[in-house]
């Protein structure tokens, strides 16, 4: 019984060591890790393309985060690291699409469509509420004549 207890305690301790080994790089420099995560939030995972580099667990994401960490340790600025990534993967690696000539449609397209749609809608509504056109005397008489026998007509 005692041997069993010792084995259990030992394996618990050993497993703690294993967990500690994995967490060591993160715990070593919390400020660096914070910077790495902040920049990773601005980069896109190219495998799970809807996730940021910070969120993704894909192998490439782990590799790229390590690259970011290495470059930061070497003293590169955030700007330089972003340029490094864009040089290799293109604008798509930026999680937030850059504001460029080619992305203006992406950024403003939906807004413009909404504004145009609303404009068309309001014009239609305004037109519908427009006052009825004025009728001349003869037109008024003709209208009355047409409308009068309506209850006898079988036009429905």
């Amino acid at each position, binding site marked *: 019984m005692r041997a069993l207890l010792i084995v259990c305690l030992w394996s618990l301790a050993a497993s703690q060591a294993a967990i500690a080994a994995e967490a060591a790089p993160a715990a070593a420099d919390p400020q660096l890790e914070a910077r790495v995560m902040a920049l990773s939030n601005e980069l896109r995972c*190219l495998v799970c393309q809807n996730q940021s580099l910070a969120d993704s667990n894909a192998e490439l994401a782990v*590799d*790229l985060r390590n690259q970011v960490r290495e470059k930061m340790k070497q003293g590169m600025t955030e700007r330089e690291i972003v340029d490094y990534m864009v040089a*290799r*993967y*293109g604008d798509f690696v930026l999680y937030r699409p850059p504001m460029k000539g080619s992305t203006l449609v992406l950024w403003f397209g939906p807004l413009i469509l909404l504004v*145009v749609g609303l404009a*068309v809608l309001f014009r239609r509504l305004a*037109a519908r509420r427009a006052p009825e056109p004025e009728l001349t005397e003869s037109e008024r008489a003709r209208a009355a004549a047409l409308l009068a026998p309506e209850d006898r007509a079988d036009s429905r």
Partner: protein
Amino acid sequence: MSAETVQKAPALSRFLLLGAFAALVALLAVGLTLNPREVPSPLIDKPAPPFELPQLHDRTKTFSPADMRGQVWLFNVWASWCASCRDEHPVLVELARSGAVPIYGLNYKDQRDAGLAWLKQFGDPYRLSAFDAKGAVGIDYGVYGVPETYLIDKRGVIRYKRIGVLTPEIVQTKVLPLVDKLQKE
């Protein structure tokens, strides 16, 4: 007959609206033909990033793109753990047999033994393979999914990148004509 007068929009306005709708449909139709997962490479027409890696078969030797100056060559990224690489491998073996263009491999994030065993099993179309254990060279080349293939010209400039499996059709319609053109440069 409704008592409410419905104003018919003037012909021009309806025409414009229809035109705008047609334009939107055209835009979406084009979008449907595009592959959203494909990330176009910014390295096209840029020099192939330099590196020096040990070779897969002979770890005492190294390989560098500088060794290939003056030749047009295909650089194929592969791995033993990559299922799609098996799909394209017969295409590469056939291409190597035809001798149209030399093929060099980049064994990406693999184990040496696994890589060698895979080549033995499926055939080796490569003059040699560079061994990129950590994937650092892959990152330099913008590799995000295996397999990927680069066509590099005599001056060491990347002229074409194929993301994904190389099909016989792509080889016939894109790769071989470009190889022809580059070899005449």
